[in-house]
């Protein structure tokens, strides 16, 4: 199919339509409003449901209702609007119904501004509401990827009966790029068996977001955790640049930049510049922020000199990278906030700094990379008082 030039927000809307979204409910907020506007025109053309809600609170609960009816339903918003949806998201998670949410992040906290940001990482990845659960979070770095991940979001939401979030920033929402759109999918002929469609010729269906008894609520939580575990095992996705697993060569990449979305795109320029200066650095760009590609990062950490995390926030994904690296290598951070994007030159300087910091004066084949690892501390003798040492203390 021929490529066409489309704005991120509109491309996502069209991708959702082609993926088979049957109902869209939303509320205007910059920088995602074009998505709502696009839906207001296209959905009625196709005989599907579009409704501008009175608030984000109402919008997410309308999505919840349509999803309970077994229909593909979605909403889109930006950071402050997403905050208002947290309650609804938690209810949706408890009810095990599939929904797709698009968050085009803007600067925060508070009203913040309308400039691009990645500061919703915590509020989306770390649960999106009260209680114990995790949604699937997909982070595109190009308009094409936003299109592809929107389709994937509907597939994953339905497969696992869960919340799937497409998390991007205002740059991607507003940017125009050539995209190839997916084919138009037919809508499902009948809603799933669990859906709330009226108890005609069957026992009643009930979809509820609570269990009054502790035993029952724990059982629901265990079910959610099993689902989250299955998603973590199967669905982690990432893209890597200049990283290869070939252990034979002596010039293996051993410095890693980790960045998602727009920050990942900027970081790629910096990585290329640093490589031209002879630094063996690569880029790991998580595509699923939840499930986080922790196993892959942990493997990279085995032979890594160091990591640099780049984000458009104060260091939110940084925590997950640190957990994955598990203290095997130093993890540095470069971030911009308030709607500022990191500059390739600044990131390249940070890469050089990391390179210098972690360059060992002696042949590491003799000392081994263990020199940087906390595991190299001497084993404690039984009964002896644990000795507290600062990292790096001999």
């Amino acid at each position, binding site marked *: 199919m021929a490529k066409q030039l489309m704005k991120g927000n509109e491309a996502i809307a069209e991708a959702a339509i082609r993926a088979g979204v*049957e*109902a869209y*409910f939303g509320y205007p907020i910059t920088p995602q409003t074009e998505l709502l506007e696009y839906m207001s025109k296209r959905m009625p053309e196709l005989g599907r*449901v579009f*409704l501008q*809600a*009175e*608030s984000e*609170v*109402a*919008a997410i*609960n*309308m*999505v*919840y*209702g*349509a*999803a*309970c*009816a077994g*229909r593909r*339903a979605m909403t889109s918003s930006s950071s402050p609007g997403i905050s208002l949806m947290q*309650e*609804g998201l938690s*209810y949706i998670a408890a*009810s095990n119904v599939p929904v797709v949410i698009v968050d085009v992040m803007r600067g925060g906290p508070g009203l913040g501004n309308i400039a691009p940001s990645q500061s919703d990482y915590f509020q989306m990845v770390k649960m999106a509401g009260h209680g114990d659960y995790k949604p699937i979070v997909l982070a595109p770095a190009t308009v094409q990827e936003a299109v592809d991940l929107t389709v994937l979001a509907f597939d994953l939401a339905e497969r696992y009966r869960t919340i799937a979030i497409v998390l991007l920033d205002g740059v991607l929402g507003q940017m125009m790029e050539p995209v190839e759109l997916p084919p138009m999918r037919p809508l499902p002929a009948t809603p799933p068996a669990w859906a*709330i*469609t*009226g*108890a*005609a*010729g069957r026992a*009643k*269906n*009930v*979809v*509820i*977001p*609570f269990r009054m008894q502790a035993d029952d609520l724990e059982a629901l939580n265990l079910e959610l955790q099993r689902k989250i575990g299955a998603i973590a095992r199967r669905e982690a996705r990432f893209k890597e640049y200049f990283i290869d697993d070939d252990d034979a060569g002596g010039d293996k990449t051993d410095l890693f930049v980790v960045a998602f979305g727009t920050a990942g795109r900027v970081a790629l320029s910096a990585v290329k510049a640093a490589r031209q200066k002879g630094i063996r650095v690569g880029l790991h760009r998580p595509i699923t922020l939840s499930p986080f590609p922790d196993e892959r990062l942990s493997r990279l950490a085995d032979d890594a000199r160091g990591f640099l995390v780049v984000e458009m926030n104060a260091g939110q994904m940084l925590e997950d990278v640190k957990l994955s690296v598990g203290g095997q290598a130093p993890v540095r951070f470069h971030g911009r906030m308030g709607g500022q994007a990191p500059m390739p030159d600044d990131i390249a300087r940070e890469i050089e700094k990391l390179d210098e910091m972690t360059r060992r004066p002696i042949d590491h084949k003799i000392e081994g990379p263990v020199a940087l690892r906390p595991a190299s501390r001497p084993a404690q003798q039984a009964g002896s008082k644990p000795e507290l040492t600062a990292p790096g203390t001999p």
Partner: protein
Amino acid sequence: MIPVEPFTEQVVFQRPRAMSATPTTYCPGCMHGVAHRLVAEAIDELGIRERAILVAPVGCSVFAYNYFEIDSVVAAHGRAPAMATGIKRVQPDKIVFTYQGDGDLASIGIAEILHAAGRGENLTVIFVNNAVYGMTGGQMAPTTLPGMKTTSSPLGRDTRTMGHPMKMCELLSQLDGAAFIARRSLHNPAEIRKAKKAIVEAFKTQIEGRGFSMVELLASCPTNWDMKPVDALKWIETHMVPIYPLGDYKRRVEG
């Protein structure tokens, strides 16, 4: 031998098909059981059980899904009209109704109910007003009467600092999208019969696609009012009805 007349049985009263056999968790003297039954009878009479969908609220009637034999969901506190909107918009042939208390509908959910009515959303709302938050233990609601003592207005609702009762029928009937808005009471059998008729009419409004319909039912909460059930019914008549006059507030015939 004495000839035996053949025994014939005629059913004059039974549980509606739309109601389940599950015993309720409601307190003695609570009016939810009566309100549930009226709704179930209306559903049976209109023959809509297999396409009826209940959106239960947060509050005592959060368990309502247990007591109806129809497809049901439970909404977040106050959000039932929004959730019902989502359900109805994707399947307009279904009969969708919310069942909400006064804390749920008139306080935290006031935006959702106003806009559902304003949009003329083709839904039915059963609004049970007992002037207090029941499930949390009788706190002041927006519908609490002036001077009425509750667990969060221990000296009585002082209108200078705690405001005046929210009159939802009066408020919603101002909106063009509202097709049928009525207030009834459950304090005696005659009023209960009138309430039933209004509920049937509200569902008919939806079946005919005329737009938003709501029946407010004045009800007692003997537990939280600290009254005997019979005294509580009397109190509805003497104290609530004067503040919340019964009647039809909106009756629009065309769609």
